[in-house]
Structures are given as C-alpha cells and as structure tokens.
C-alpha cells in the first residue's frame, strides 16, 4: 500500500515529563526511521496502519500503532532493570551492567559543570579513585591525574589516555601543558576511567596507572542539522596574597635590626611599594564554541569550532586557543561496514609569565620604587629600579624587580596539534557474528616557543637573550582485531583477538643566543623514538545472563628494552555475578540492581619518563654543545661522553586484586558502588647507585624495588527529589588510598627525590623514598617548641638519643598524597531554573611550606643579604622570629597539614525556549569558580601536587557568565 500519512508526535520521559532528544522512531518492518529533535518532537510519514517502534538508550522501547492518528505522545519508561548505558572499554564497548572490571563512566553534566577550559576540569572530583590536581592557575594550565595512587617511583605515574580509540603518549607539547588541553571540552561525549587491572590489562604495558577513555560527540543518523552555540565571559582575580611588610614597616624593622650600621641603612629606599599588587591583574577571559550536528542519509556528522582567550591573573600571561573537530560516521552495505572518521585540530598561542615573580614580589624590598628616572636604571634597566653591585652591574643574587621581569620578557609558544583517526568495522556478510575492526590513527604536533629578553632585563646576565625551542612529535598507530560473538542457549560467548603497532617520535631543537646573536649561543638538537608492538585477546563468557567471566591477555613488546627483556605477558581475569537476577531475589523490592565483581590482573610500565628516555639499554656517546668544550692542541674540539646504560632493564609489573559491589536501590533511584583494591608493583624502575667504577655514572636506571597501594572507593548517586517540576540529583564519591614502598635494593639510606628541591640553600631536599613509608615522604627534623607553642630555632628532638643532632635524627613525616579524597555534586532543577554546586575534599595531604621556610630568616643575615640587598619578609615570619642560625628549613614545622575542602563552583542557570523564532532553546548561567577553600594550611593554597609549595601560579577566583543557544 503506497498510501502514506504524516504522523507527528512528541517523546517524553514517563516519570519526569521531560522531552527526550534523540529517540529513534522506526516504522516496524521497514527501514524507515527518524530521530526526535531538541524538543523531543518528530514527524514521520508512515502507512496509516503501521506500528511505530520508539527506542531510546536506557529506556524500555515502546510499540505504538498509528491507527490513523496524526499526532501521538509517547511516554518512555526508564529501563531500570537492565541499565542500557554503553561504556567504552579497551577495543570494545559493553553495557555498563555487563562490565566485569572496575570502571566509571561519566558524561559531562551540561548544567553543573563550572568553567571547563581543559578536559580534566570535567572529571576533577567526580570519580572515585581519580585524583586530579591542577598545576596552578595559569591559563591553560595542566594537571596531574593519579588513579588509585601512583604505581611507580621514577617511571611515569600518568594514566594512559585514549581518545576515540587512539592511545596517546604523555609527552607534552610546546605551549600546552598536557594533551588534555588539546581537546575542546565541549566536544567530549563521555569519559570512561578504567581502574582495576581486569579492566586495564588489555592495554598491557601502559595500563598500570589506569586508563582514561575519551569519546567525542558524534552526529545522529537521519537527524536534521542542528547548530548550537556555547560560550562564556569570565573575570578572574587573585585570591589570597602573602602578607608581607609594607614600606614603613620594613623601614622601622630594618632601623631596629641594623641600628648604627649606617652603611647598610643607607641602602633603604623611601617608597612604599606593594610589589604583589604590581604583578597581579584582573583578567578577562572569553570562550566560544559553535557546533553543527546531524545526519546526511547514512552519514551522521558533527563539526565544531572553539575559541578560547584567557588572560592570566599574573600580568602578561595569556592563553589563546582555537580548536576544530569533524566527525563523520557513515555506514555502508546495510550497516555491515561502519566507518568512523575523526579529526581534531588545535592551534594555541600561549604567553608565559615568569612564575618566579610570585616569590620575588613577596621578597622585593618594599621601600624601593618600581621605576626610576635616575641612572643607571633609566638606560641600563629600561627605567625599572634594580639592585646593583657596582656601576651598571645588576646584583645577580638579589631579588630582581618582578614587574621588570614580567614586562621585559616575551616567552610565547605557538603550537599546532592534530589528532586524526579512521575506524572501519565490518560485520562479515555471511557470518554476522564475526566482526573485523581496523583502526588507523595519528597525532601530530608542532610547537615553537620563542623567547626574547632585552639587555635591560637584569635577571638574564644583561646581555639579552633571543631564541626558540621547537618540539615536533607524532604518534602513529594501527590496530586490528577480530571479534566473534555467539549466543547458544543460556550461554554467550564473545571472543576477540587483535594486533596493535604504535610508533612514537619526538624531536626537539633549540637555539638561544645573546642579542648580539654570536655570543652565549647554545644549540640543542634531540630526537627520539620508540615502538610498541602488541598482540591481545579477550574472551567473555556469560551464563544465564548473570554469571559473567572475562579473561584478557596482552603480549607487549617495547623498543625501550633489550631484546631479552622486551616481551611480556599481561593477563587478567574477572568474574561478575548479577545477584539480583537470581531466583531468590525475584521478590525483593529493595535492590533493583546488585552485582558482585572480582578481578585480578597484571599490568606493566614501560613509560620511563623523559629523564630516562627511550634507549636506557643501549650504550651511546653524548656529544657536547656550546659552553662545554675544552681546548686540546689549541682547538675547542668535540667531546664524547659515554652514557650509563643498563642492558638488564625490564618492565615494571603491577598486580592488582579488586573486589567490588554495584547496587541500585528503589528502581535505581539510588545507585552506588564500593570497591576495594590491592596493587603491588614489582621490579620498580628507579635511578639508583651502581658500584663505583662499573658504569659511566654513579646513578643508573634499574629495577630495584616494590611498592603497594591499598584502597577503598565508594560512589553514591541519587535522585533526592524527582517530580515533574523539581528534581534534585546528588552524587558523592570518596576514596581512601595508602601507598607504601616495600622494597628498595641498592639504597640503604633514603633516596632523595631529586626534582623536589626546596628553595633554601642549594640542592636541599625534603622528600625521600624509603622502605616502609609512602613514596615522597617528608624527611625532616622534629621541631622543639617553647611554652607558647612557638618553634625554637634549630632545636630539634634527638630522636636516636645519641646526644647529637645530625642527619640521623631526621625522620619520615607524612607525605603529599591525600589519604582520603571526596567529591560532591548537587544539582537542583526547578522548572526553568537550575542550581548546581560542586565540592571537593582532600584529607591527610601534607605540604612543605617552602615559601614560609625560605622567607623565615628575619635576623640580620636574612633581611640584609651578605651579597648586598634587602629582602622583605612575611609578617608571619616575625612570629617564628628565626634569625638564620641553623638549618631551620629542615624542620617539620614547615610540613603542614594541607587538608582542604574546596568549593569548585556554584552555578545558577535559566533555560528558555523558542526565542525570536530562530533559537529553539538556550540557557543563561552564572558561575562562581573556586569561591571558597577551607583549610588549616598556612600557605596561600593547599593544593600542591609536588608537596613543595613554591611559586605556584595562584588559582584565581572567577565569575563566569555563560550562554548556550540551540538554533
């Protein structure tokens, strides 16, 4: 029958009454179908006696006979029993309910998201077991992400990030602090975090620190083009600054301290300069994103463009980013061949401010002027006042004028990044249970950071400097797998086997010289590459829809190890039991979902970090560059230095045991999970001493120890209120993790953590690795206090009771990693209004207050330096009143409890519809970002990933006005 009528309708959630976007309407028995629009509406032309099948992910599908009607309303009920949500796992997707490993999948909340410039902002505090600490408040700043604590010491602790199926490397690119900054957060559909080894082992040697799978948004089949705009304007200001002496206070103090010493006192100025005010500014930022999505016949598409421009709260810093993305997902041969093409591009201009000015502004003498029209300042220092030794020579040990440091330095990175991949998924025509999947991907990035420092900038030797550093890198990947899925009665099999090849290449070249372009020249060229070749397989077995078994195995071979140690196997096994599907649970009305998960797996670590590099086992000579030549027979000739190497180096292996329960209560109105885990890393890669005379350095990369992480994770999500006009969603997560080093061979004493030096002295450290203690434990003296609980300078507890206070009295005292982290999100929606709050807590994390320690000496030797300049001091240092008698900075007094509760954002929004005919819907919102931090920590900000608080770019407080429009 050719007669067709036009049927229109609307699809709604039966419970909340909200319209459902993207539901599919199919005329039964045909291939005709449409998808609902933003307002849940659809129009389909169908035979008057046809039946329409309406489907939407996570809801029970409904069949509606047309029966001559032209207008119908469809109510969909949530599919509470079988949560239909599909989550990405390695090389496949599964229904969340069928997942056997520990994983968390989240979709960024459209309403309650705060300001998200970088992808990591969207998961901060949202996922149990995932701790995200931003590197500071610089625009475009990166973050450190730790999943279930770190599993390594010197090797990388970063999770593997997989974007649309392409596994990325973790090396940064110029101008962008981490690769998550290269993706426009607005393009992200979902994050899946794989946490336990049974989930991650399919990624083998890169999976020890967890895996974050990012899936970007795609178009929909047959949908009309939809254009959306999302943007915001925000204003940032600095929160706290350090309370230091002003000009008058400083003059009074110096006059008292150096009474009668006219030589010294004559160096005091007459001004009262607030140097901190000089370096900070109120910054204006804006962010715009436009996207179009739809479906052109069998080809869903989506394209987006984003622009971000952020000023930093430190003068001169600015981050400008353009992003573009295109997704095409055509399918052919009756959906037998599905193709997915993704391309993402980014262009960034990033001007860095020298963060040294943060400390300098607090230390610069407040009695001195910012600028001076006198000589030598006028000519030699571009009018900025500076400390000089004699004539026009800057005192190189003094605190440089921070405003001059900012304004007389141009440090700008320009970088481009491209991520592209093509996936082909073919369901074999004669055997539809068999799928073949091919994925080809690449990331290419090219960044250049230009530096220009005029000769008037005192702090760089007064000869000026110009030059650049370029980093070019790519990552190429090919993966191929076959998948066979079959159902036989009550049994289901799903078996997959595949191969993957990846090539990572990185080159760096830099060139710097003095402004005369011939002196002080340094050229540096560096190139490196590595390959990873892997074979992997997975088998899923399901019995009676309730007993699920997953086994995976991966064989990884990395070019980073010698042939004998190159290949390794990473197996995993997981079991899940859907308890609520059992007969005895049939009549229970409490649990709508109940699943027990048990998992075991082994993962590896082959990312040795840039310090160790890609060739730790190959003996090579390193050539010298400028400034490091030696005259032989009258010529400054090339020198070769043999590098240390270790042929025996092999993988780190982490073994994980995990047990978890997922539950849903009251028709899944409340859902949650709890996981307990134990992870042990063996053959820990670390740089430790070798026997003198046996290698070409005293310290060589070796497999030397073991550590373990134990923890519990808890997640709870609930709809506190769920009515037609009012809904209130709350989600909460909490994590406890304990890290301990269990073995370190070849190091009797503690191993200092080289990159965590403190500011006082040269080469002083406060963090060490020691057996029996958490990694990065603070190693300090125990302070003795007077009756008023003030520390007595240099008086430490003789902990070993030998009557002497020496190195042997230092002890292990806390560490920078939190014991417990928590996140809480609340979203209240009342009709058109929404109100969201996101909170985050971190408990038991300690920070060495390097700022306070470094500025503690308020005595005669600390305020007027022996090298001839004044140093301002914080008011708080007057209370401790240290005068620089001893190594006061090794006191546990400066290791401070930095537990905190931070309000990440508070958002109020209003949603509107049908504006000016052109705009189908939209939302206006106001957000305050980072308004409050509650902490006992005495420094400016308790969130310091390294545990040494020094010159951290302050995280600003921001006010954001956001607008979203759907056309």
């Amino acid at each position: 029958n050719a007669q067709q009528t036009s049927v229109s309708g609307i699809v709604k959630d039966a419970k909340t009454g909200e319209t459902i976007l993207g539901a599919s309407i199919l005329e039964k028995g045909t291939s005709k179908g449409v998808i609902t629009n933003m307002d849940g509406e659809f129009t389909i032309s169908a035979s008057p006696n046809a039946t329409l099948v309406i489907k939407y992910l996570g809801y029970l599908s409904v069949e509606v006979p047309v029966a001559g009607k032209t207008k119908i309303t469809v109510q969909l009920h949530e599919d509470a029993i079988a949560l239909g949500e599909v989550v990405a796992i390695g090389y496949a997707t599964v229904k969340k309910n069928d997942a056997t490993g520990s994983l968390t999948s989240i979709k960024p909340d459209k309403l309650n998201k705060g300001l998200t410039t970088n992808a990591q902002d969207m998961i901060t505090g949202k996922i149990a077991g995932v701790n995200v600490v931003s590197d500071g408040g610089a625009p475009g700043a990166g973050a450190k992400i730790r999943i279930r604590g770190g599993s390594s010491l010197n090797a990388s602790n970063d999770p593997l990030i997989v974007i649309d199926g392409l596994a990325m490397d973790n090396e940064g690119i110029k101008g962008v602090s981490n690769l998550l900054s290269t993706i426009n957060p607005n393009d992200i559909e979902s994050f899946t975090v794989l946490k336990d080894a049974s989930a991650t082992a399919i990624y083998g040697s890169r999976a020890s620190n967890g895996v974050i799978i990012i899936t970007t948004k795609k178009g929909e089949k047959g949908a009309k083009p939809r254009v959306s705009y999302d943007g915001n304007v925000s204003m940032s200001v600095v929160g706290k600054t350090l309370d230091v002496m002003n000009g008058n206070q400083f003059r009074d103090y110096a006059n008292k301290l150096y009474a009668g010493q006219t030589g010294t006192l004559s160096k005091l100025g007459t001004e009262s300069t607030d140097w901190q005010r000089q370096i900070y500014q109120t910054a204006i930022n804006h962010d715009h994103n436009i996207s179009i999505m739809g479906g052109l016949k069998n080809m869903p598409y989506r394209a987006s463009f984003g622009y971000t421009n952020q000023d930093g709260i430190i003068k001169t810093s600015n981050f400008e980013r353009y992003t573009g993305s295109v997704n095409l997902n055509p399918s052919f041969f009756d959906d037998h061949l599905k193709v997915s093409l993704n391309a993402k591009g980014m262009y960034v201009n990033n001007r860095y401010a020298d963060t040294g000015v943060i400390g300098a502004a607090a230390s610069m003498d407040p009695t001195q002027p910012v600028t001076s029209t006198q000589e030598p300042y006028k000519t030699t220092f571009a009018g900025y006042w500076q400390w000089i030794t004699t004539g026009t020579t800057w005192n190189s040990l003094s605190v440089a004028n921070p405003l001059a440091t900012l304004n007389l330095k141009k440090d700008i990175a320009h970088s481009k990044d491209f991520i592209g991949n093509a996936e082909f998924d073919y369901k074999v025509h004669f055997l539809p249970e068999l799928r073949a999947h091919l994925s080809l991907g690449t990331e290419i990035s090219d960044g250049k950071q230009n530096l220009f420092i005029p000769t008037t900038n005192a702090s760089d030797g007064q000869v000026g400097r110009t030059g650049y550093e370029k980093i070019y890198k790519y990552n190429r990947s090919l993966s191929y797998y076959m998948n066979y899925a079959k159902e036989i009665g009550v049994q289901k099999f799903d078996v997959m086997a595949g191969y993957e090849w990846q090539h990572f290449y990185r080159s760096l070249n830099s060139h710097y010289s003095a402004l005369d372009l011939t002196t002080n020249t340094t050229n540096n060229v560096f190139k490196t590459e590595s390959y990873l070749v892997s074979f992997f397989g997975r088998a899923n077995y399901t019995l009676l829809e309730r007993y699920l078994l997953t086994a995976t195995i991966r064989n990884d071979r990395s070019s980073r190890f010698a042939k004998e140690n190159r290949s390794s196997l990473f197996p995993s096994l997981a079991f899940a039991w859907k308890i609520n599907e059992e007969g005895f649970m049939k009549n229970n009305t409490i649990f709508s979902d109940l699943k027990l998960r048990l998992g075991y797996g082994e993962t590896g670590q082959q990312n040795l970090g840039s310090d160790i590099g890609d060739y730790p086992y190959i003996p090579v000579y390193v050539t010298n560059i400028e400034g490091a030549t030696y005259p032989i027979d009258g010529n400054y000739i090339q020198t070769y230095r043999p590098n240390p190497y270790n042929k025996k180096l092999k993988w780190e292996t982490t073994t994980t045991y995990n047990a978890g329960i997922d539950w849903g209560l009251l028709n899944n109105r409340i859902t949650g999970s709890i996981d307990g885990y134990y992870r042990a890393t063996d053959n820990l890669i670390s740089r430790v001493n070798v026997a003198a005379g046996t290698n070409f350095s005293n310290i060589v990369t070796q497999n030397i120890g073991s550590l373990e992480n134990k923890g519990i994770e808890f997640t709870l999500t609930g709809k506190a209120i769920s009515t037609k006009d009012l809904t209130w969603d709350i989600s909460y997560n909490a994590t406890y993790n304990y890290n301990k080093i269990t073995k370190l061979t070849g190091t009797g004493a503690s191993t200092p953590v080289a990159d965590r030096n403190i500011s006082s002295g040269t080469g002083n450290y406060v963090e060490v690795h020691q057996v029996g203690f958490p990694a990065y434990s603070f190693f300090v003296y125990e302070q003795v206090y007077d009756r008023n609980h003030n520390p007595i300078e240099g008086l430490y507890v003789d902990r070993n009771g030998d009557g002497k206070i020496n190195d042997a009295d230092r002890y292990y005292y806390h560490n920078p990693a939190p014991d417990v982290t928590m996140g809480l999100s609340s979203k209240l929606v009342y009709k058109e209004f929404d109100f969201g709050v996101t909170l985050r807590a971190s408990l038991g994390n300690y920070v060495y207050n390097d700022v306070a320690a470094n500025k503690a000496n308020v005595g005669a030797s600390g305020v007027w330096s022996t090298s001839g300049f004044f140093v301002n001091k914080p008011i708080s240092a007057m209370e401790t009143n240290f005068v620089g008698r001893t190594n006061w900075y090794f006191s546990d007094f400066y290791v401070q409890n930095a537990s905190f509760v931070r309000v990440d954002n508070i958002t109020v929004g209003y949603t509107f519809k049908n504006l000016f005919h052109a705009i189908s819907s939209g939302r206006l919102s106001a957000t305050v970002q980072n308004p409050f931090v509650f902490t006992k920590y005495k420094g400016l900000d308790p969130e310091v990933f390294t545990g040494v608080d020094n010159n951290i770019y302050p995280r600003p407080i921001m006010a954001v006005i956001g607008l979203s429009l759907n056309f």
Partner: protein
Amino acid sequence: CVNDLNVTPIDPSTIRTFDQDAVFAKVYASLALTGQQGPAGKGDLAGVDEGTSSFIRLIWNLNELSTDEAICSWGDPGIPELNFNKWTASHDQVNGIYARFYFGVSLCNLFLEQTASATDTKTVKQRAEVRFLRALNYYYLMDLFGNVPFTEVVSLDPPKQMRRADLFAWLEKELKAIEPDLAAPRTNTYYRVDQAAEWLLLARMYLNAEVYTGTANWSAAKTYAKKVMDSGYKLNPSYAQLFMADNAGAFDASTNTAPQEIILPIACDGVKTQSYGNSLFMIASFHTSGMPAWGTSEGWGGNRARAALARKFFPNGIPVGTDLTKLTAFAGDKRAMFWGWDIADSKSTDPMTILNYSVFKQGLSVTKFSNVRSDGKVSNDLKFTDTDVPLFRLAEAYLTYAEASFRLGDAPTALTTINQLRDRTSGSAPALSSITLDKILDEWSREFYFEGRRRTDLIRFGYYGGSDYTWDWKGGTAAGTKFSSIYNLYPIPATDLNVNPNLKQNPGF
C-alpha cells in the same frame, strides 16, 4: 611489525661509535666541566647538584673547608659538616667527589680499552696522558679515602677494594711506566700533561708516603721535586698573575707570563668552557658586593679566610684603624690578597675574627682569584670566568724540595729554597732568616692557601684529626675543638657499600 623494535638511537647528539679524539678530549674536559652542556645540563653525575659535582670544586671543598684556611657561610647540604669536621658516610660532597673520581676512572678505562691495540705515536702519547689522568683520580682517591675499589677495566662486576699502600705502589709503578711516552717538560701543547706533571705527582706522593704507606720516603720526594725544578718551568715573577683571567698567557692573547709556572692548568673560558664548578666557583664564592671588581657578575659571598689563615700573614693582628682595603701592603707579602670588612657591619671586634660563621662579612675575604685580566682588557663573559685553575704549579716543587731537605736534616737548603720562592725575582715577600718544620707548614699555607690542598699538608704534619693544633671553628666551636683522627680519611659512601659487597668501611664510620 616486530622488527621495528630493533631500534638504534636517532638522536643526533648521541653517537654509537667510539671516537678517539672526542673521548680523549672528554677525559681532559671532565677536569673543568660537569656535563655536556655549559654551564650545566646533560650532567655527568646524578644525585648531586650539577654545579657542585665539579672535580676541582669538590676537591676544594673537602681539602679547604675542613682545615684552618677556609670556612663557608652557606647552609647548603654538606657544607656545615665540612666546616665543622662532622661528616658521615652519607654526605653530599663526599658522595659527589667519589662519584666524580670514578666517572673519571671509568672514562679513562674506556679510552684505554678502545685504543689498546694502537701503536701510532699520537695514540701512544694520548694513552700515556690518559693513564696519568686515571692515576690522578686514583691519587686523590688514595689521599681522601684511603682504601678504595680499584679497576682498570670496563666491567659491570663490582671492583675489589685495594689497600692504600698497595694503591700507592700501583701509582708509583704506573706513573713511572708512562714516563717515556709522555712529552718532555714544556714540549706538549698547553693544557696537556707532560713529564713535569708526572714528576710533580710522584713528588707529592713521596712527600706524603708516610701517611699513605707508613714509611717515609723524603729522598724520593726531594729527587722528583728537583727534577721538576730543573725541568724548564720558571717561577712567575708576579704571584697575582697566576690567578687572573688571562693566566693562560699567549693562549689568552695576553702578555701574562703565568704559563711558565703552571704545569697543569684546568682550562676555563667564559664562553667556551662554562661551569658553576670551575674557577667561577672559586671567584664567585670568595666575593660579594662591595669588594673591588672581581670580573664576574656573580658574587656568592660564601668562602672566606678563617682567622687561623689570616694570622699566617698577620701574626700580630690587624690594629684598629688599619686600612682594610690595603691589607696586602700591610702584610708586606704580595701573596696576602685579602679584603677586610667594615667592623660595624660585621659586628666583630677584629676583622679576622668570625663570631657567626653564617655571616660572610665576618672574617677576611680572599681576593686571590679573579676574572680580571692583567693586561686590562675585558674578559670573555660578564658571568662565566676565563681564569684557569692552576692544578699543578712549580712552586709546589720548591716547597716539596725544601720540606724534604729539612726532614733529611738539610735546613740550609730548605731555607734557601723557600727564600727563592718568596722572592720570585720580584721581592714578593721578604726572606726568612730561620726555618723550622712549623715555619715550612706555614709557608705551604701562605703560598697555596685556597688552592685546594691544605688538608693533605695538615695531615702530613700531624696537625689534623686527633691533633691538639686547633683553629677557629675547628670541630664546630668558635674557639676550636679537637676532632678524632678517624676524620683523616673520608668514609666510603654508604651508597657504594650497599651495592659493592667487596668493600669495607674505613674505621670509625
């Protein structure tokens, strides 16, 4: 494909094949540099601040700060322990110097293995010099640590420990064995080792033979010192020139005549050979704002003279009213290159006295080293220094000859020789009229203060650990306290004891 995994490094700055001249140059370069990038970067060693990891800076710290000559105001790791003779087996500079010497040994072993079969004249000469420099590393190890691991090969097997006396015997044999292959005195190109350097090292070993082996050998010390004195090197008339930016003379396009005295210099250049641990360390750490121009923008204000050193030149003190900017003239000895500070600012009663060791301006500053040229021209860089470090210089042979003669009972020769040195043909210092053993030790200090050798001299005279001879801040008290003789040796670093089962710690640590 799996074959892709067989990578070879693609970094153009790394090379897989041995290059004889390039490794030879590195053997020398590691006397001055800390890594493959100037002033720091691509460091040779790890676990120690790169600037601190320098050969001469570490030798200087261990041999000067622990004695009556120098004290440092810094609280950097390890520095107070050196000031106060309280180091342990986990000590930054001790670990650093040990690692530096063995880096040198491994580097030399590699060169010698790779060139073992070559017999051409150039290689034979290079090999002799590399063997000398390996011996130099072992000499310092013997002097500072006593009984140390010993290896002549590149191998992953932990080396065996050699007794101090056995190492002495090996060094004696080794140095004599290379003599025919070394260039005759003053015939090699500047900065390269000649026979005079070998003789001087032997002379130094024989002078201290009693300490190293238990048996004195003054006559051998005298013999080898004399060989050096007769080798064609000359005392430079100007003492000051020896420590100035253009002390490479013709090599620095200068008329500075210091090279006639300097037997083995460590090359430094403000542009081409930059380090925070070569002469820059000596110049910058001795100076600070307010002192007469020292030729670099760096003035770290750390190391200055203990009162005990100052008194070698000012035995009767420095009376109030003395012009502290003209102390050389006041001392009547051109080698007395000191600078005194405004007493009010230093809060001390006497410009030589140090009441608070962490205040640099207490005590006399040393202006002996500078990056200023004797010809008045500008040095190569505002920051990094051109001044070569005179590691071996002829004056040592004079004092060795004098001391050995005296100990052999020939006081007149000792007196004559010392007065020759004091005179330097330009009347550097007035002649001494009489001589005693203690006067010889004082003369060692006056001639070589702040050049990185004092500890060895004090030990030879029995004036170090276990001795009643005290100096200000010795052992950590302002007046000076005796410390144990176990400190006459530095401890084998705990890190090496942990990884090399063949090692036994020095007694007392």
